[in-house]
């Protein structure tokens, strides 16, 4: 499935819009509609902004996935930034060390069906999210 993956480089805030548009296109192709498209695009916006604000650059990798009869989208947001020292705290609503509302990561988690985050100090952060068609 990596073969069909769409890689969107995230270097500046304008790239966040590009990532949202690519995700929306893929989600339509997979079979999502209505508010699900907006939920996916909004979640991508939050994780992409996290890259721009904290890591400066990274990438978002989008692919279609299947589990049994359900189709879905897989979103991997990857950066080689400073890493998150306290993930539990970063996942708490209202916590932010940057210029945001502190809703980014916990917000993205609420918008998607599955959410995992792996971060290593000095190495970077990878957020993996999935959403399945109903």
């Amino acid at each position: 499935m990596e073969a069909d993956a769409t890689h969107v480089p995230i270097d500046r805030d304008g790239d966040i819009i590009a990532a949202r548009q690519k995700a929306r296109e893929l989600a339509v192709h997979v079979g999502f509609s209505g508010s699900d498209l907006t939920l996916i695009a909004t979640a991508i916006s939050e994780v992409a902004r996290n890259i721009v604000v904290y890591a400066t650059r990274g990438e978002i990798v989008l692919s279609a996935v299947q589990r049994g009869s359900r189709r879905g989208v897989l979103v991997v947001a990857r950066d080689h930034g400073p890493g998150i020292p306290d993930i539990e705290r970063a996942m708490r609503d209202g916590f932010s060390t940057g210029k945001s509302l502190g809703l980014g990561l916990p917000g993205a988690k609420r918008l998607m069906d599955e959410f995992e985050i792996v971060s290593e100090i000095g190495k970077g952060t990878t957020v993996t999210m999935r959403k399945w068609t109903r």
Partner: protein
Amino acid sequence: MPVPILKQGEMLIASIQSNLNDQDLMQLKDEIAEKVGRFKSRGVVLDVSILDVLDSFATRTLRSIAETARLRGAETVIVGIQPDVAVAMVQLGLTLDGVLTALDFEEGMELLVASIEGSRRGGS
């Protein structure tokens, strides 16, 4: 892409035409603050119906646009938030507390006129 801001009587009308990057949003805030002063505007209608995503950054910026305009003496109403966008904002935990909102341009204008009339009478 910059957002055109039109003067109509005591009101300013800003209609977002495309998805905006951060710089466009910040520029919009500065221009509204400046034009409210130049035209002595009492109200600002900000049409966001074109936007297909309002994430935490955009929402925070809209709130700060409204707050900046209020400090300059003008009330802001945000109009045209799409239904899917509203659903996503609620799920994300975003609110626009303290900012007037209306379904569309006409209702936004009515709300502003009523709010300005109310404050002239000394009520709230």
